[in-house]
């Protein structure tokens, strides 16, 4: 009998071109390389300087998302892109893809979108694959039982040239989530609660496997929200074993295997889940049934409390004090008193159709509070089209929110969609770092439901008030 193995170990060992030794790291083969305009230009330059070719254009897919505009007239109407350097970066990606033969889902492509949204949508994200991208939220794809993680630009160059990466084998951490999420409590709340529990470096050096009843009960889109934020706990990757939910999601997607190839793939994929008795280096536990809607109050995603809770009073800790000063919030006060200026619904964490439906459900027939600016940015053009087909855009517009073309947008404010200095934003994205959404911007991370409820009240609000 072979010894029981974890999901991670199965995917890892199937991709070892050369195993790790005392002197050298493992050489790991990459099945899918996703790339975008911000972290690739210097890698293509390196190829050019060294006279190297792209080894596997067929395993490489490019899109543009980070610095792209979200205003329709700029995406489709020929209006100039406001930031010159962003426009240059976009043109550079077009040139690089043309020169090296990379498929690009460009500015006006109906399949364009945030790189971590379109991989799953197209069905290129599949169980058992190794997937990398010059972007830390590549962890999202782990929701399918892929080993997926972010890399730097030098490594983007390595993959372009060799389709391989040098890797040190990470350890494994089982995240056992018991129970079921109560009504009104979402996958976003689950992952925020976990990061609050283990801390922003609690996963450093590990690949996380999310397990247990609560995880099995999540939809594919919810699983992506959970895996997306694995990096916020410092983890190398997050994974969830593929099951019928995974297969149902992938079946019939444009780039998923079809026919006999589908049947063969299913057989492979069913063998991937961790074997009974497989050993993890470490285990943490979380009880989903005890969770509440969560929101961050500080300047990293681990600084999080239930929306009904109070900001902790931890005076005297200089890092905590600095975060409170930046946020302009008072330790010990209820977070529900915090005022809101901006609400952003979107990003690779919560910019999928189910997220927009959740926000729309709260907003339907209601309006955004006076003085609050709400921006809804679908995660991809496909999400946008699907949302419009069911009239979600009308609900948002009627409530007083703005409806845009897809992209990263206000998640990181590279394209000019920013939060003003000192303003409070409730954001469905993944990082509340200082200045993440604009210089001096103050970010509170939450679920789409909490964001929408807070938009209505103009302050942090428990969405369950609107969901009964």
């Amino acid at each position, binding site marked *: 009998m072979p010894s029981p193995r974890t999901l991670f170990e199965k995917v890892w060992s199937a991709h070892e071109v050369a195993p790790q030794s005392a002197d050298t790291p493992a050489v790991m083969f990459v099945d899918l390389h996703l790339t975008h305009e911000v972290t690739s230009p210097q890698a293509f330059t390196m190829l050019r300087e060294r006279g190297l070719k792209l080894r596997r254009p067929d395993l490489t897919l490019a899109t543009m998302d980070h610095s792209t505009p979200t205003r329709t007239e700029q995406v489709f109407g020929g209006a100039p892109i406001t930031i010159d350097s962003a426009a240059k970066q976009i043109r550079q990606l077009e040139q690089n893809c043309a020169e090296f033969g990379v498929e690009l889902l460009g500015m006006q492509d109906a399949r364009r979108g945030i790189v971590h949204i379109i991989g799953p949508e197209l069905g290129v994200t599949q169980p058992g694959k190794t997937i990398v991208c010059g972007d830390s939220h590549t962890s999202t794809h782990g929701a399918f039982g892929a080993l997926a993680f972010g890399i730097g*630009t030098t490594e983007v160059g390595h993959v372009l040239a*060799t389709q391989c990466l040098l890797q040190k084998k990470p350890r494994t951490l089982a995240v056992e989530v018991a129970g079921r999420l109560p009504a009104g409590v979402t996958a976003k709340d689950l992952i925020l609660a976990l990061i609050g529990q283990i801390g922003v470096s609690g996963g450093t050096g590990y690949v996380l496997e999310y397990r247990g009843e609560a995880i099995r009960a999540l939809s594919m889109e919810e699983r992506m929200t959970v895996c997306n934020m694995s990096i916020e706990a410092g983890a190398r990757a997050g994974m969830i074993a593929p099951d019928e939910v995974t297969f149902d999601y992938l079946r019939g997607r444009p780039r998923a295997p079809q026919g006999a190839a589908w049947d063969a793939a299913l057989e492979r994929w069913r063998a991937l889940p961790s074997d009974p008795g497989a050993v993890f280096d470490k285990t943490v536990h979380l009880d989903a049934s005890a969770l509440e809607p969560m929101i961050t109050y500080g300047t990293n995603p681990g600084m999080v409390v239930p929306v009904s809770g109070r900001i902790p009073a931890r005076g005297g800790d200089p*890092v905590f004090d600095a975060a409170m000063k930046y946020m302009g919030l008072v330790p010990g006060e209820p977070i529900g008193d915090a005022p809101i200026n901006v609400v952003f619904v979107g990003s690779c964490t919560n910019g999928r159709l189910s997220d927009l439906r959740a926000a729309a459900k709260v907003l339907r027939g209601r309006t955004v509070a006076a003085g609050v600016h709400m921006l809804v940015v679908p995660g991809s053009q496909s999400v946008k089209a699907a949302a419009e087909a069911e009239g979600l855009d009308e609900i948002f517009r009627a409530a007083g929110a703005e409806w845009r073309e897809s992209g990263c947008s206000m998640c990181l404010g590279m394209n000019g969609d920013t939060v003003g200095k000192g303003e409070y934003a409730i954001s469905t994205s993944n*990082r509340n770092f200082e200045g993440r959404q604009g210089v001096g911007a103050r970010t509170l991370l939450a679920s789409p439901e909490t964001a929408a409820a807070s938009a209505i009240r103009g302050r942090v609000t428990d969405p369950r008030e609107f969901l009964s």
Partner: protein
Amino acid sequence: MKPITVIRSRTVVMPSTNIDTDQIIPARFLTTTVKEGLGKSLFADWRYDADGRPKPDFILNRPESAGCRILVAGRNIGCGSSREHAPWALVDHGFQAIVSTEIADIFRNNSLKNGLLPVVVDEATHAWLLANPGAEIEIDLAEAQLRIDGRDPAPFPIEAFSRYCLLNGVDELGYLLSQDAAISAHESVAPDARRSG
């Protein structure tokens, strides 16, 4: 990449924990298509006021920080975004080593690939470094030791392969390219076999 052997320098100390790569280099500076010139934007939002003038009390703007090549930071520096612009900016500014008790995974990887040495030391050494900003210290890569006068040398972990690359100023791509035959052999195996584990 220049070979690194011994780095001797005074330290710049930034004691904050969880200094993320958005602080090291804010996103609005990422619309560049080259690696050079990011040093002036290093820690931009902490370093300059709204009008772009240097804030005199920020550590990098103080005269004693000039010429320092070692940055000592609080626990978990480099968390967040995978942007390699963070080590590019640190190197462009003149840093050659980052010292902490914990260095985030992707940032550590990116640093190694740019001749920026990530040095993870024990709590006691770290506490001493935080308490003695501006101290002249020595980081010896061949010995994998951080040395402070009058104290026992503090060893730090570094993979043999990364150490070899840094000591010799060679990059990892050459090694990967030399694996061509093994990569081809792997590619020739049907994806079924490859992916079934």
